[in-house]
């Protein structure tokens, strides 16, 4: 079947969202690790920053990334009329 312009746009938006979230994932993981020795000089509430990110901060951001993706994509489905019907 032929995809409509709207369908193409839906997929482009999905790709853009995926790329942005992946970039955040990359920064809070690999950039923070790379500069960990320097970032550890910053201490917040008793936690050296890079240690805190590795132990908790990045994990919280991962959870938020996935939460946001699910919410946004489920909205996009409705906007572009590609949502699923009520099954069973």
């Amino acid at each position, binding site marked *: *079947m032929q*995809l409509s312009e709207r*369908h193409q746009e*839906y*997929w482009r938006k*999905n790709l853009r969202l*995926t790329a942005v*979230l*992946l970039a955040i*994932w990359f920064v809070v*993981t*690999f950039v923070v*690790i*790379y500069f*960990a*020795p320097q970032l*550890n000089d910053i201490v917040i*509430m*008793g*936690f*050296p920053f*890079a*240690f*805190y990110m*590795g*132990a*908790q901060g*990045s*994990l*919280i951001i*991962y*959870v938020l*990334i*996935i*939460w946001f*993706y*699910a919410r946004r*994509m*489920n909205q996009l*489905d409705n906007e572009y009329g*590609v*949502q*699923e*019907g009520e*099954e*069973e």
Partner: protein
Amino acid sequence: MSTQTQSQFFQQLKKYYTFYTGGFIAFVIVLAILEQMGLPPKWIGYIFLAATIALYAGIGIMSKTADVSEYYVAGRRVPAIFNGMATGADWMSAASFIGMAGTLYLAGYDGLAFVLGWTGGYVLVALFLAPYLRKFGQFTIPDFLGSRYNGNLPRTIGVIAAIICSFTYVVAQIYGVGIITARLTGIEFQYGVFLGLAGILVCSFLGGMRAVTWTQVAQYIILIIAYMIPVVWLSVAHTGNPVPQIAYGQVLQQVTQLENEFNNPDTAKGAAEASARAAFKAQQDSFEAKIAALDAAVAAGTGATFLEAQRAEAGSPADFPATTDDLKASWKKSADGAKGKTGPVSAHATAFAGKGSEKKLLKDNPDATAEEIAAAKAEDEHASNVKRRNFIALVLCLMVGTASLPHILMRYYTTPSVRDARKSVFWSLFFIFLLYFTAPALAVLVKYTVYSDLVGSSFAALPAWVANWSAVDATLMKIVDINLDGIVQLAEITIGGDLVVLATPEIAGLPYVISGLVAAGGLAAALSTADGLLLTIANALSHDVYYKMIDPKASTVRRLAISKGLLLLVALFAAYTASLKPGDILFLVGAAFSLAASAFFPALVLGVFWKRANYLGAVVGMLAGLGVCMYYMYITYPFFGGVPENQWFEIAPIAAGVFGMPVGFLGVIIGSLVSKAPAKDIQELVDHVRYPNLAGDIDTRAA
């Protein structure tokens, strides 16, 4: 059941599991009361083991099914939040539950690679795989490869890779079950393995994915309660704050301060540490001198006489080494063990510490020349860079491996819709996150207890938990007064990683029933992971090999009979392998991630995101990725006869996937570009998985 709507089903599940959780807590309270009334700990262990396994068996029997879709994908009606809990239990193995906090205790920041890798991978699952696989909607991961790349060869490679990574992983789980059962009840390890196996089989044998799903939800609830209670208790005891994840910042500062004291010989504690380290250094030197004497004797041809003299001197114990080589190995181990105790305490939060060459040089030789200092500095920097490189490589392999392990991806076939698959990844990571972001807090809290309460106490009056655990298992807790001052120094304590979780209830001063609860939690973690893995292997063989390739006309009854028979065979074989206690199980678990990342990830992701990817690309990419990964392990890992000198960029073999992955991607791309674009129906399949609902679309759902 078929007349029930999804929301009624959800309400019903909520009711059942709320009731179940309440019942479980009541059960623990009753046991606690019985303990106060004098029930011996051994009985508490038996009751926990029997009650939890009976519970899982009960759920398994209630969920028995003869329906193919129920058996393979739990009827595709598992609500997002429950699938999240099941994935959490499926995911968290004995290594996460028992080992994780211990690794963090021992390695500090450098141990965080596991915490990051085993959570961040879910971002990749959410963005690249789960919704698309759900839309595709069949039974296994090789199913997707077979349809997308249009052939039995990609499917077969998928089956082989799925079996390789799942089998290494399941052996480790059954091993863990054996250890925990043995500890909980005192029976022998080999019997523990087969007892645990019975527990695994009753869950999955009758009801397949359906039974495994509902058992895993129950197991998740037990394991998270068991993990949280002791940590919260310990946190209140040390900081007065019941939220350990926030409270441990202040404890970490105290730990850092104590580390500095231990490393500063001008303080009283530092001086005592220095004397203990000096005693270990003397021990190391004496063993090295003995080794030199042994070597000289062997070179002179008098090795046998030397061995006899040593045996007589030691009082001829029965376990004295039989050959000069064994004697040398035993002395070498003692020398290395002592050597490990001679260095300063490493700081918990410090990332990628160097070797300390510069400090050592300045201490040993105060008038070192500028060149010598520069050389030592460069050496430190190099060591630090290698650590950082390995950390990054390991995190990447664990993350991509997470997003490639078939037993996890398969779980997203079980949700009712694409929407629910997306939400379900969120719930999965949320439930996993609860445990993983607590583990670093637990490690620091236990470290503080050891540094502040145990260090400096008198050998005549050790805390009860130290005495108990060193009596039970010397690999977990060993303590010797090497400098004979009657006071415990940090260097004199040897802790095995698993102790941290296992001993926390006692460290926190909780009754034995909580120790039983922790062991039951560890058992739940190991059993649930083993269930998911066994099902993956059995399904790959019965569905992909038998039904899709050998006999596509097989009846439903026959397909399920074959699947159950294979499940039994694979389980027995895995238990047999585990009962042989193969060494290096932790390495094999890590290897499973590297192998999965190299074999599956490129073909799966490009299969969705790149329409041009085709049959040849998938075959080349998967074989090349898997091949490079296995080759690297083969040439660098000592178990296969490899040597560290063969390493590329000094990357450890556990992170071999860091080479396998890019090769896999390149393989798919090049293989696809040199052969012609996939046919129109394949391109339509790609569109089909990309859009949750497409008018006039094809249907790939399996019956």
